[in-house]
């Protein structure tokens, strides 16, 4: 990996970086769409590439089950298998073990789980996770971590953090001896739950191993914790992580979360949200999400966003047509999926330009005004951005919204 910081925001911790991997250059900060089972839902890799997307994510847990390592080896890796010539990142499979299987038992050796095929006990060790990821061949691979829900409290959180450090060492060892370090880059995952002291201990240990890791992820968040806790942990980690390594915030996908994370110094994020919400009929826009299932869109001849460069909006596809097909025709999902992926990329591309042109604070202010101007600002966003020197409330007279403040169109009453 060649990693270079090419611009820094004069006020916040935001930065623009150039990350060169075996499958090309990805400019950061960026959002990574998720191709769980080796396909972005409903699209072809050529379509995804045409949207200006240069880095996507595959899930190790899923690919290990299907098509399986043998097929991936025969295909020459996941890039060849799915026809994706750009950069690829795989997670370690740890998160799915915990979220998908009720019977996972974590031991020091690894994660013991019941195979979803035959119910037989199956062990996923750090070494195995890395060697599966070697078969997949992603440009960025993740350590196996001991994942606990972000709402977990008590000694289990500390145990998981310490174990994640020990497992990192085993992942490093497995990766070092693989001879694949020139093509694949191992990222560590900072754990420690919502406890700043545990996070600090984890950061100490993982920063110590900096020479063996290409980048750092911030894990164990986006699991339903208070947003005011979320951003503080992100800030704590991003402040301490070395500036010459990319920082990846796992499971973050709402536009406001992305921009707060970028302002706090995060370079990469992933989430299934934009593609999943598309299948439920929701289009993301700079004025907030549009639920195209709602009756108010029945006769609207407007595109989702006339300024959007995505193929759906550029073709003039009206909200009325989308209302007619979303959640019924696969083509409705395709149309919204390309739009939402372009929206995410536009939010992040806009941030890159703004940082380069030394106007990132203004970009934040105008984004939040467009997005939340009708309802009020989520208080946590205001707090988070104040911590890096941007006051969203300056010159605006808007209410503060408690809680997550997520904007949503729920019903026809909206």
């Amino acid at each position: 990996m060649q990693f270079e910081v090419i611009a820094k925001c004069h006020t916040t911790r935001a930065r623009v970086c150039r990350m060169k991997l075996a499958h090309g250059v990805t400019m950061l900060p960026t959002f990574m769409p998720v191709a769980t089972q080796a396909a972005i839902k409903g699209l072809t890799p050529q379509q995804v590439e045409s949207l200006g997307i240069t880095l996507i994510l595959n899930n190790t847990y899923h690919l290990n089950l299907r098509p399986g390592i043998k097929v991936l080896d025969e295909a020459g890796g996941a890039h060849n298998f799915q026809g994706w010539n750009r950069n690829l990142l795989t997670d370690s499979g740890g998160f799915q073990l915990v979220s998908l299987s009720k019977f996972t038992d974590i031991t020091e050796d690894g994660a013991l789980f019941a195979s979803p095929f035959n119910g037989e006990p199956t062990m996923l060790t750090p070494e195995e996770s890395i060697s599966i990821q070697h078969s997949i061949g992603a440009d960025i691979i993740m350590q196996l971590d001991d994942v606990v829900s972000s709402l977990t409290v008590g000694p289990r959180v500390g145990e998981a953090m310490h174990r994640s450090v020990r497992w990192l060492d085993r992942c490093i060892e497995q990766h070092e001896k693989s001879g694949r370090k020139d093509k694949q880059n191992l990222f560590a995952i900072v754990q420690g739950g919502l406890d700043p002291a545990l996070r600090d201990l984890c950061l100490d240990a993982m920063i110590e191993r900096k020479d063996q890791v290409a980048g750092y992820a911030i894990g164990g968040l986006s699991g339903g914790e208070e947003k005011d806790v979320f951003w503080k942990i992100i800030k704590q980690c991003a402040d301490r992580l070395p500036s010459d390594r990319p920082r990846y915030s796992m499971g973050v996908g709402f536009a406001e979360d992305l921009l707060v994370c970028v302002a706090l110094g995060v370079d990469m994020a992933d989430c299934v949200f934009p593609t999943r919400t598309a299948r439920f009929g929701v289009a993301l826009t700079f004025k907030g999400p549009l639920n195209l299932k709602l009756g108010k869109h029945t006769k609207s001849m407007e595109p989702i966003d006339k300024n959007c460069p995505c193929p759906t909006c550029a073709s003039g596809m009206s909200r009325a047509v989308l209302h007619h097909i979303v959640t019924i025709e696969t083509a409705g999902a395709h149309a919204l999926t390309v739009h939402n992926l372009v929206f995410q990329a536009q939010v992040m591309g806009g941030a890159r330009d703004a940082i380069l042109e030394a106007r990132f604070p203004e970009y934040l202010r105008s984004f939040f005004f467009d997005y939340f101007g009708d309802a009020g600002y989520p208080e946590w966003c205001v707090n988070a951005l104040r911590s890096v020197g941007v006051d969203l409330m300056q010159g605006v007279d808007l209410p503060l919204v408690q809680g997550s403040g997520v904007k949503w169109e729920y019903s026809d009453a909206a």
Partner: protein
Amino acid sequence: MAQAQLEGAQRVGSRFPKFTFILDQGKQFGPRVGRLCLTRPSNCLPNHVIDIRTPNFLIGTSRGVVPHFSRDHVHSANGISWINVSFESFLEQTPPVPTYQAGSQPLHNFLGFDSSKHIVSLSLRDPLDAREMPPNGNSHVSALCMRGVRKVTPADWRSYVLTMQPDIAFALSDTPFTAAPHSQKRLTKSIERSAAWLADLLRPLENTDDSPTESTPTLNVFVHMAGGTSTSARRAFSHSLTETLHGLEANAVKPLRCLDEGVAGYSFDLAALHVRPAPLSTHHDRGGGIEIAENSLSLQNSESLAQTPTPNTAGTPTSLSSSMIEPLSFLSLAPTLDELLRASLDPLPVAKPRLVTDVRSPHEILRLIRDIGVDVFDAGWAVKAADIGVALDFIFPVPSEHDNSPDHRKRDIGHNLYDAKYAHDFVSLTDAFLAGHNRTSSSKTPVCPCAACSPVSSTSPIQHSKVDVQSHQAHSDDGTNREQFLPPFTRAYLHHLLHTHEMSAHTLLVAHNVAVLDALLTGVRTIISGHADQNEAAAIFAREVTRFEEVYDGTMSVLHTARDNWKDVKYARENKDARSVHSTEVQ
């Protein structure tokens, strides 16, 4: 060369393009080649002529979209020049939402079709839907939308057509979708209503005082050939199109002397002939995108039609036109599809295009070209094959090296990619065609140009910031020649996508299957037009059809197996979902 210039004098303004069919070669019955030519008013577009060589195909839509395709796929797909929109799904709103689309070519623009590339036709009903419906009335057709059954009058239909300005409109037809058998009285009613509703669509526009000129483009109307499974009813319907009109009837369609003068083409919707109407209880849901009618694909060829129920002879002739129908009890055997189509076409001019919907195999297409001279087929069966995970793999004419396999089994017309044998199969979807990436100058094997076999890199990805140029610059410098085809998607990958319920599988398969169908019809045209002597051309074509039937399995057994596998995977998922709602797809 015969030419049908469809110059009705009906004045509907200059909004409608001129549609002509030129029969290059061929006669009343037998293989023929021709050209469909659509000329848009010259003030419309710089590129205003669309030329389609026949035999060719059209692709139907579901809720206004080509199944599984995003708009960019519709534009880049090979061979898609004629798209049919069934209007009934839009009846969910009153007035139907597409009628709000302003400006020229509202139907094209509402649905995102390219008026320089796509002929877009409009029918009320989905011609592939033969499920049982409430009866039509003297002045309405029962149509189906998600909110239930809607009654559509000829006046409604005329107004929808005039508002939406399709390139071609299908006149309403009284096809009974009630439980068979149908009485002779019902058949009589059917052909009378169908003729009356055609006449209604052919009426000149009101409030047009200025006299029509020779060059005024008219509404292009296709008529469904009514008459069900009775050859005499079919003959009677065709006669009613060609007989000179008198009195009020003549006045209504003036200056047309007979209805056929205003007809641009004949269509045969086989769905109602193929199967006994199925009860409405199984409503179409394309929710997963891959719902197919239970009874579709069950009858594979025209011979099977012999088993379709024969109408009873209940009722006696009551009107002038019905007296022309011979009592059906005199028929000892149900007529074949060939006989039905010939009965309809016999009394009609030779040089108008003939469209058949709901064909179900390449074999049926080839036979209809050989025995009848059908010019356009719908691609519904190829799309349905994609729905159930089948990648078509056949070629016409059959190359000499395609001899029967050693065990004398016929070749399947495609691959059921659900089959475990494809899990490790890293070749492109067809044996009959090369992938663009693997083409060589020495090979005679043609290339399949579809998005699955010959993918191409995007030439100009969207740039989201000024520095993005570094991503794209650096990548194309890496020796990736952007003009070249990328490696094809493999059977192993499609097998994986099908078993993981990924929608991308169906997108790639529709692209591929449509390209294989396009190649079939291109092959047909090459054979027929390759011989100046018509009889020789017909004989050579017939030989090639026989060879195709010898090499490829006409029972389409691969589709049956695929549908069973598709169901297994679908139900396995539904059961799993029932157990744990949140189990699928987490971050």
